């Protein structure tokens, strides 16, 4: 089931595989999407739903599954769900569900803006007596804080058990309700539901694939969670052919999340120190972050964290100075992309390094973002072409309209030309967590340089400027280890002799022992005593020994291909793969064999060469120690080793700020009143009430039409890597708006001619592509129209058009601050726009 993704369009080569499954193995492909797209065209079933109603649809699937005869009669589902998920776990008796509070959960603050999550917690047995009394190190401290095991009811009958709560929560998500909310017929919905159900079980698995069609919502995280729940209920996680596959958008967007250039995260999913929390010292930081998760593999948090700080500051990082923790910056709020531009507009941000990103086109409420750029003192842009971000001061729509004047813009701008991928070496992490190395084929032309060159040489200069400082505030930059100088062999044969060593950087990411500089082969070998450095623990093993780079392996086989690249963690391609075996450790079926318990050797094995995502010798059925950490605490039947209870979470007692169970809320801007609850939208949604960022009201008569933005096969993101390429420009030359004939007739819009799309943020003109691939929905007896626009265009390059993101608003999911680009409201009319 592909949902929230236009896979054929945006990931054409990945789509090779589901299509192969269909034509060669009879797999059924289903597409659930508001539009009929190139993906729908190749699928067996297309369920067309109103944009932003994914949770209603998925919730309907959950209810259908757990009430079905098949699910209740096939023992496979019970064995998987009772043992591998938290279905049996008992939840705090004070918890109140949306069923009781008309769309809200217990714990909402008086002002309705934030949830307190105490009532969402598990019922637990008393805490064990700690196994250690002394506190030599962080691990000892964690051992003294192990909570009692969660209480369970394996019969799933207790009213407070997760399964019963889930069942009640989704009981109103009936096929009739799905039809009413999503505008998709009951018959098509049931076809999807039965196909999923009938193709899941001991001998079959179903996969769900999504992309930004799910993330870019004010309930984005919860949509994805619903899919995770559904797959857990169907026993489809940790097994070949199952899972929830995220199709990400950029060559190493996975890598840039793993090794986060993201404000909230340190590499390897350690959290960024946050001054609002009890993160005052390294001990506070580790205890605050690790205590709640110490019974999962995160029980090793101290080793990962200390090795990270040691990697930053080297010899200067000592036990006495908390490994430099005190000099590391702390966040104090949400510093993500949207607030970054709000704060830039407010003059708080003065200098801006913009490296391979084009917010003047790609940013939400792009007019707002461009005007914010004009407030900067300076900006460094690194790219291949004169992007819209680089040129905003001379020919942006705001300059053309006279809203901004070039002479008034004081922003000093340095454009540094970038090398392209074949002109440098380095590793990318693809959407399946697979690291792949690309070699350098040629020197880049003229002054073009790799981005690593830029950061390395900028760092060198800055370190030089600070080298004599004795200020506390300069300690970090002064003591930052910065040895990426290339070895002679690395630059021999190339014109550019000061290109930094990508290998050295990857080795630091991998980790090595500080004393002898030998690579660490496994994250299990990292230490919390400062003897190891490790940039990002999840990548450990990519360089298991000096000179051996596993991301550069290029030997494939017909299946897992363990010798092609390196899948983090530890070359595990399918996470939680202990779940591919039953309670006894035997494969669920011969067809779906992956990882299983080998009695003879007393080990988990995988003939396919798959990395074992479990303790290698922990026998099935073995009990964990109540007073242990990580694998000591986890039992032999706890496959979900990154969860503190070892189970897949149907109910999320922690980790989410907007509820433990996904609930259908309408998009922030919607023409429809929530048919399910009194609560209209996500109660804790992130909004920015600032000038230039007005929102539409619910069912706003001025903006009655739903709009989605998306990508095309022929272009890439904000167009920097496609609109300058004539071969691609001629394939999709001009901006268009997809609109149904019904709406076009109503508005007098003529196919092929210009139309204008308008929101409170801006207006754009586009060619009208009138097509029955778009259709009006009937929601609660009322017609709801929807239009769609690709967002690749800007005013530069060999294909040009208006910036579609001028239309969208700064509004975001409360968990991760991703914007709601997939659904908001607008109005449309025939003809070109006036002004800008």
């Amino acid at each position, binding site marked *: 089931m592909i949902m929230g993704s236009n896979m*054929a*369009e945006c990931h*054409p*080569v990945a*789509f*090779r595989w589901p*299509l*192969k499954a269909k*034509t060669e193995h009879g797999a059924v492909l289903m597409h659930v999407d508001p539009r*009929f797209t*190139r*993906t*729908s*065209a*190749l699928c067996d079933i*297309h369920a*067309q739903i109103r944009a932003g109603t994914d949770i209603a649809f998925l919730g309907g699937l959950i209810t259908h599954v757990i009430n079905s005869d098949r699910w209740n009669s096939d023992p496979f589902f019970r064995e998987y769900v009772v043992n591998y998920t938290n279905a049996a776990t008992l939840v705090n008796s004070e918890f109140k569900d949306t069923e009781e509070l008309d769309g809200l959960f217990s714990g909402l603050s008086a002002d309705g803006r934030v949830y307190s999550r105490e009532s969402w917690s598990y019922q637990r047995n008393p805490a064990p007596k700690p196994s250690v009394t002394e506190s030599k190190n962080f691990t000892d401290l964690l051992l003294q804080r192990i909570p009692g095991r969660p209480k369970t009811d394996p019969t799933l009958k207790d009213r407070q058990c997760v399964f019963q709560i889930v069942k009640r929560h989704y009981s109103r998500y009936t096929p009739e309700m799905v039809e009413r909310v999503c505008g998709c017929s009951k018959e098509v919905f049931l076809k999807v539901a039965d196909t999923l159900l009938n193709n899941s079980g001991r001998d079959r698995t179903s996969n769900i694939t999504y992309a930004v069609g799910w993330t870019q919502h004010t309930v984005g995280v919860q949509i994805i969670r619903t899919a995770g729940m559904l797959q857990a209920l169907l026993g489809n996680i940790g097994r070949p052919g199952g899972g929830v596959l995220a199709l990400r958008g950029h060559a190493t967007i996975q890598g840039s999340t793993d090794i986060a250039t993201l404000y909230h995260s340190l590499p390897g999913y350690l959290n960024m120190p946050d001054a609002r929390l009890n993160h005052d010292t390294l001990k506070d930081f580790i205890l605050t972050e690790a205590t709640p998760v110490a019974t999962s593999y995160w029980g090793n948090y101290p080793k990962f964290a200390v090795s990270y700080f040691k990697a930053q500051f080297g010899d200067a990082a000592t036990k006495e100075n908390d490994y430099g923790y005190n000099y590391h910056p702390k966040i104090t709020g949400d510093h993500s992309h949207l607030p970054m531009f709000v704060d830039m507009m407010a003059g708080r941000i003065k200098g801006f390094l913009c490296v391979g990103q084009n917010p003047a086109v790609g940013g939400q409420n792009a007019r707002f973002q461009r005007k914010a750029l004009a407030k900067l003192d300076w900006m460094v842009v690194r790219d291949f072409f004169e992007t819209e971000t680089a040129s905003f001061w001379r020919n942006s729509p705001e300059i053309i309209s006279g809203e901004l004047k070039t002479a008034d813009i004081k922003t000093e701008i340095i454009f540094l030309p970038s090398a392209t991928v074949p002109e440098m070496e380095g590793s990318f992490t693809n959407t399946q967590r697979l690291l792949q190395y690309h070699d350098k084929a040629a020197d880049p032309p003229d002054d073009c340089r790799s981005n690593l060159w830029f950061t390395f040489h900028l760092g060198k200069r800055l370190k030089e400027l600070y080298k004599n400082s004795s200020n506390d505030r300069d300690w970090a930059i002064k003591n930052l280890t910065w040895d990426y100088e290339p070895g002679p062999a690395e630059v021999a044969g190339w014109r550019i002799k000061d290109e930094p060593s990508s290998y050295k950087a990857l080795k630091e990411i991998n980790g090595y022992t500080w004393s002898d500089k030998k690579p660490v082969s496994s994250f299990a070998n990292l230490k919390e005593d400062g003897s190891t450095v490790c940039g990002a623990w999840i990548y450990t093993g990519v360089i298991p020994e000096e000179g051996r780079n596993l991301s550069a392996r290029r030997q494939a086989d017909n299946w897992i291909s363990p010798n092609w690249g390196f899948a983090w963690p530890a070359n595990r391609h399918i996470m939680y793969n202990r779940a591919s075996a039953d309670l006894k450790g035997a494969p669920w079926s011969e067809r779906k064999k992956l990882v299983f318990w080998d009695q003879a050797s007393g080990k988990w094995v995988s003939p396919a060469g798959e990395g074992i995502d479990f303790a290698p010798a922990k026998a099935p059925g073995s009990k964990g120690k109540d007073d242990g950490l990580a694998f000591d605490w986890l039992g032999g039947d706890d496959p979900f080793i990154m969860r503190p209870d070892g189970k897949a979470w149907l109910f999320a007692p922690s980790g989410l700020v907007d509820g433990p169970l996904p609930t259908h809320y309408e998009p922030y801007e919607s023409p429809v009143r929530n048919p399910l609850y009194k609560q209209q939208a996500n109660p804790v949604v992130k909004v920015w009430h600032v000038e230039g960022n007005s929102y539409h009201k619910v069912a706003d008569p001025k903006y009655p039409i739903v709009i989605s933005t998306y990508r*095309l*096969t*022929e272009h890439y993101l904000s167009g920097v890597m496609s609109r300058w390429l*004539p*071969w*691609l*420009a*001629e*394939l*999709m*030359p*001009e901006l*268009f708006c997809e609109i149904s*004939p019904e709406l076009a007739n109503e508005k007098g819009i003529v*196919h*092929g001619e210009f139309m204008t799309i308008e929101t409170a943020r801006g207006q754009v003109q586009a*060619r009208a*592509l009138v*097509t*029955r*691939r778009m*259709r009006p929905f009937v929601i609660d007896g009322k017609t709801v129209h929807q239009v769609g626009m690709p967002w690749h265009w800007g005013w530069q*390059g*060999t*294909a*040009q058009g208006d910036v579609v993101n001028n239309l969208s608003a700064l509004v975001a999911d409360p968990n991760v601050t991703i914007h709601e680009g997939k659904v908001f409201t607008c109005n449309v009319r025939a003809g070109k726009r006036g002004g800008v």
Partner: protein
Amino acid sequence: MAKGMFVDTSICTGCKACQVACKEWNGLDPEPSHFRKEPGMPYPVAFNFTGNSYDNTAKLSATDWRHVLFIEQINYRRVGSRWLFMSDSCKHCADAACLNVCPVSAIEHTDLGNVIVRQDKCVGTKLCNKACPYGVIRFSEKTRTSHKCTLCNDRIHNGLGTACAKACPTGSIAFGDIPELKAKADARLSRLRSLGENKANVYGYSQAGGLKVFYLLMDKPEVYGLPENPVVPQRRQLSSLGTRISTLLAGLAALISLRSRGSGSGIDEDRREISG
């Protein structure tokens, strides 16, 4: 062994990778008619939006040797919706109209059965342009000769497949030996028929003496703009003496065209001389 391609439109996603891969390997320019210089713009900008579904290149040309067709079949109730795609190119006919009408024998079958325009021989009569029943071969103002897909002549003579087939993400374009490809097409057709795709058919076994590039279509050929019975003009019957004369003439034409290229003049006179 004759080589060819089987295009299975039932698994084409209309991604156009074939179009770009073709241009990349064969070093083809963007189609000049797609771009326009606007006042104030330092470089030409594409303006070739057609509104014809996702197809903007519209047809084959001297620089577009491949083209992907988009056909939306959706009724007002949106029941049984289909979006059909077809990646089109030269079909490398066994009985090739272009070859038949070329007065200078600049078009030939190679030992692998593909039809190529010998750029060293072509003098730009454009007769082939008119003769091709599929509108494939096209004249280039830049080179003053005609161009079309060569079935990646250089690649296939070196044991490689065509660039388009290699790039095709779903395997919709398959390159190989004709009998194998036919077996594949037949198997796929019977599979689709068994799934209830009653309109599916294979196009190209009988047309123009048999096409080296044939198609599994999901609807009648006319839906894709393909003639059921393409009209192929035949080569004039020539005496053995005539054959020798025409070979001589062709040699002469080649020499003249080589000389006249570069000088950039006299093409029309050359052509008159040859065709007269």
